[in-house]
């Protein structure tokens, strides 16, 4: 038997166990505030998952994941805001306060809840598809692509900050009541909200895992290894890079929607460079090559920040930075590689079979 860490059946079992633990949580907790906070960690987990998919598996470092997250969040906030507008009061206050006495066209789709949510997810996804196509066709890659995403993020940040009458500027949008969906009010502090995030995270993780195990996932890993070589095998590298970048963007956009559902608030801070960088830090610390590792990274860092951040205040960032440096220096594949090494030790004590497999093919009864 090879390293259990690379055994596909074991991986799926570990995923099942992980989500079983997350499913028990709401039954054990009757503090609404805590439940809401844990649900937001689930959203951060989705973001770390999207980074792991794009960066860990695709080799594309994306420092601007806040674009997809932020646009998704704004779309959701606009939808929720419009839900509270009535016929006698059709214009959101943020416009009236900024001297706009009509609903701008940008907001029209969000007057309909279904269409609004679809737009909240589709617009950032489409943006990723277009931006990715342009960049990857031109063979922009590695640090150059990372810098382009950073520049794009700053551009979006500035536009949203600047167009106060449309976006609420620095104050953002604060929908006064919770999301109404299909006749149900999704109270952010209810188990319903937690379950919504839980299922979104679980579906995203399972789909991401399936993607990494598909033929697409194998080609993507080949491209991460040596993009130049893969072209000569007949694969359009740009097509694959755009696809993985867009899928990651889609996950982040959904995360943005869920986040607003939980906090009833959005502002340019969600497109802040620092926030997008922390997504990368979560994935790096948890282990960018492991989807669940990245999610755990987000839980650990955000959890620590909530509880230790208050105690240490400004030194918290120093502690986080130091921790990050230690991980990058000594554990380049994050905390997940500790588990890999541990299981590896265990495996070497047993006679090793030569046909250990770790790829796109089914694992024989191991």
């Amino acid at each position: 038997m090879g390293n259990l860490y690379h055994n596909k059946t074991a991986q799926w079992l570990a995923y099942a166990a992980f989500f079983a633990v997350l499913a028990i949580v709401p039954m054990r907790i009757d503090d609404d505030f805590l439940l809401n906070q844990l649900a937001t960690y689930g959203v951060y987990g989705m973001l770390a998952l999207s980074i792991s998919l794009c960066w860990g598996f695709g080799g594309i470092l994306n420092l601007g994941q806040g674009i997809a997250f932020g646009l998704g969040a704004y779309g959701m906030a606009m939808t929720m805001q419009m839900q509270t507008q009535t016929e006698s009061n059709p214009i959101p206050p943020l416009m009236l306060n900024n001297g706009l006495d009509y609903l701008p066209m940008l907001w029209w789709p969000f007057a309909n809840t279904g269409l609004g949510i679809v737009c909240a997810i589709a617009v950032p996804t489409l943006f990723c598809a277009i931006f990715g196509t342009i960049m990857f066709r031109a063979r922009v890659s590695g640090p150059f692509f990372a810098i382009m995403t950073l520049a794009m993020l700053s551009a979006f940040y500035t536009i949203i900050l600047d167009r106060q009458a449309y976006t609420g500027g620095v104050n953002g949008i604060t929908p006064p009541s919770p999301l109404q969906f299909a006749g149900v009010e999704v109270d952010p502090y209810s188990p319903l909200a937690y379950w919504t995030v839980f299922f979104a995270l679980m579906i995203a993780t399972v789909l991401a895992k399936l993607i990494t195990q598909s033929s697409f996932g194998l080609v993507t890993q080949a491209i991460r290894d040596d993009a130049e070589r893969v072209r000569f095998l007949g694969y359009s590298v740009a097509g694959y890079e755009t696809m993985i970048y867009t899928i990651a963007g889609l996950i982040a956009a959904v995360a943005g929607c869920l986040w607003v559902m939980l906090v009833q608030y959005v502002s340019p801070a969600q497109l802040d460079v620092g926030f997008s960088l922390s997504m990368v830090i979560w994935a790096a610390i948890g282990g960018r090559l492991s989807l669940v590792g990245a999610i755990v990274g987000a839980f650990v860092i955000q959890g620590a920040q909530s509880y230790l951040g208050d105690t240490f205040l400004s030194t918290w960032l120093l502690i986080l930075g130091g921790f990050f440096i230690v991980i990058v220096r000594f554990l380049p594949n994050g905390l997940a590689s500790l588990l890999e090494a541990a299981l590896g030790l265990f495996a070497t004590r047993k006679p090793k079979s030569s046909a250990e497999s770790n790829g796109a093919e089914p694992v024989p009864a191991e």
Partner: protein
Amino acid sequence: MAGLLEIHNLSKSFDTIKVIDDFSLEVVEGTLCCLVGPNGAGKTTTMDLITGRIKPSSGKVVFAGQDITAQPEHVIARAGIGRKFQVPAVLRDLTVRQNLTVAFSRQTNPFWNLFRFRSPGLERKLDEIATLAGLTDRLGERAGILSHGETQWLEIGMVLMQEPRLMLMDEPIAGMTESEIEKTAAIFKELRKTTTLIVVEHDMGFVREIADVVTVMHMGSLLAQGTIQDIEADPRVRDVYLGEQEAA
């Protein structure tokens, strides 16, 4: 019979240096053509131009009746040209099995590949090629740890997995032992029954054994072309290439 690959008056300059100079070549389907010439003659550059890695300054490359000049690499590969690089290029972080699987590129569309978890015919083909390349016991290993000879074999195996109509092999036996070379020669002789090959090689013994046609390049142009006997008898070839080889 028209050539499967036709190169018409190809030229390529880097800055002011003309590396390929009005080079023309026709490779007939079902033959094995050896491309020889001294170091720096432009053999690898010719392969770069055929496979789209670099774009020619002028001239035309026609494959199976289709103009492929300056097309993107993956389009040329899909048209049916597979290539082994001079410096063996395999995917070092992936396993041998994964390398061969990726090279089995019948379906290249990223969208459809999202929904594919096994390719029909893969297992049989993979077994066959792994056996041929002597890598059956190494399928689970990371390609980065293979020996030089094994890496050469893996890359040859990858080209075979692609099932191309034309195979370009840049110095396939460099770094191989005598017995490995013999095995390679046997395989190439088998391959030329069903496919077309262009092989760049310095080892004249190997060339003598496998070549149907030998093309000699010198300073970016065609110096001579013919059977191995013609070439070895050609005084110009002796001057620029073979003489230097015998001296070495």
